[in-house]
């Protein structure tokens, strides 16, 4: 049992100060912009909630939000099951375990814009490995800069390449915490592979899967650098995800008010969905 101790606040204070400095001041700046209009020269006019209404009603925002949900949905639908399957089939001990872990973790340690550039080079139609293979060996016409479908497939495959390992590592950690006795008992009972998975492995992986789904949701919903470096949001607007659109409005057009309002709506949606995921997945524990 933890003891009550208000002096614990002193221990938390440095963290609080640093995070508050980085989180509260910028968010207040954003809130400040979101209710004002400016024509430059540091002159601001009170605008009320107009920007919020304008953003919430604009087709452009709806389209970007739709693409964002499609992207995140695809990512979760592919990476989570794939990560579980790979974790299940990984060796449990021996020489190959560290080899697998190190090679699998490698993509996560590459700077995000390098990931984008790398996939750009990899998929160039005539001189990239994948692009050349698809176009000239298989004869499938493939050009990311021309076809929205190809661009979409590429950004999804890139993210699967980049982040599935996170799910694998988490699930693997969960699997390794299952004592051998559980498997022996299942064997004596004559349990099928599916039963072992459903009643032993899956429940044991629940905590780590919750972390995996939450992290993958947050990060794929906020993704910016990789798709921007790879496609720049194109062709047309077909891969302009929410954050790419936001940066276009804020830094490209310098519409600070609408961009700030959009940031807050964006943040609110992320928080809301994370909270729903979190509550749904931890609901059983409290009962």
């Amino acid at each position: 049992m933890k003891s009550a101790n208000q002096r614990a606040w002193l221990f938390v204070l440095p963290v609080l100060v640093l995070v508050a400095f980085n989180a509260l001041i910028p968010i207040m700046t954003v809130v400040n912009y979101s209710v004002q209009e400016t024509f430059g020269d540091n002159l601001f006019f009170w605008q009320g909630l107009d920007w919020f209404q304008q953003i919430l009603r604009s087709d452009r925002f709806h389209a970007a939000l739709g693409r964002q949900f499609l992207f995140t949905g695809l990512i979760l639908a592919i990476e989570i099951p794939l990560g579980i399957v790979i974790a299940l089939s990984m060796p449990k001990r021996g020489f190959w375990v560290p080899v697998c872990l190190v090679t699998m973790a490698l993509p996560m340690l590459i700077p995000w814009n390098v990931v984008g550039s790398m996939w750009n080079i990899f998929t160039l139609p005539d001189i990239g490995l994948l692009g050349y293979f698809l176009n000239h060996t298989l004869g499938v016409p493939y050009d990311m800069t021309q076809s929205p479908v190809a661009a979409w497939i590429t950004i999804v495959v890139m993210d699967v390449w980049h982040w599935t390992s996170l799910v694998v590592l988490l699930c693997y950690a969960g699997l390794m915490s299952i004592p051998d006795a559980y498997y022996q008992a299942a064997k004596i009972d004559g349990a099928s592979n599916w039963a072992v998975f459903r009643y032993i492995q899956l429940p044991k992986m629940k905590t780590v899967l919750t972390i995996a789904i939450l992290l993958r949701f947050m990060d794929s919903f906020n993704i910016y650098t990789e798709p921007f470096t790879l496609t720049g949001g194109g062709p047309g607007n077909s891969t302009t995800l929410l954050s790419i659109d936001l940066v276009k409005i804020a830094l490209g057009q310098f519409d600070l008010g609408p961009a700030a309002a959009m940031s807050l709506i964006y943040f609110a949606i992320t928080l809301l969905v994370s909270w729903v995921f979190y509550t749904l997945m931890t609901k059983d524990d409290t009962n």
Partner: protein
Amino acid sequence: MKKRFLIPLIYILFLMLPIYWLVAMSFKTTNEILSGFSLFPQTFTFDNYAAIFSDPTWYWGYFNSIIYVTINTVISVCVALPAAYAFSRYRFLGDKHLFFWLLTNRMAPAAVFALPFFQLYSAVGLFDTHLAVALSHCLFNIPLAVWILEGFMRGVPKELDETAYIDGYSFPRFFVQIFLPTIKAGVGVTAFFCFMFSWVELLLAKTLTAVEAKPIAAVMTRTASSAGYELGLLAAAGALTIIPGAIVIYFVRNYIAKGFALGRV
């Protein structure tokens, strides 16, 4: 049953292909790259790497990145240690809310913060310094560090603390001499994740720097646009950014899987 190893094998091959291509590209001459497709470098050249190591803008990009990543890792771990201890040992007013609030900072899109960060760090006179980038990365690294460390600390029985007090240890001495060595694996994992997320982040690092502290990843984007599109040079620079991560990951290979699994959700 024996075919099981095929799944991780195919997955690893899939992971290695783009990396192989990047490395192969970096050993090709620009002429060879543009003249057509070749699976292996025909005229093997170190020119791209030589160009990087002889140009201060390039290699200072690496030093800048490594400097701010190191500062960030040190700050994050140092302030997260006492906080994680407090969360794992004591109940205090608003502890659960505070913990959740810390985690929400990981959910904020970096794109939202780019402009306010620029203004904030310009206002306090830190713009274009390593410290600015290191401090701004604390936004998402400190919550993560607290989260992971708290998981490790919760696994240490409270009796350890009590025995130490009975033996007459003061709190700082107990923390440094007894408690830290017990959770050193956790500190290693935490440092690794802080390193990783600070190393890969670019948007804030790019926004907060101009010349003096420009990270390698940002040098890459600028060179790609100004000097035409030198694919070989770009590939070499990219290949070099993989190395620090690979070194760090090798040292913590036995702990990476544990890192997140012990965190509380």
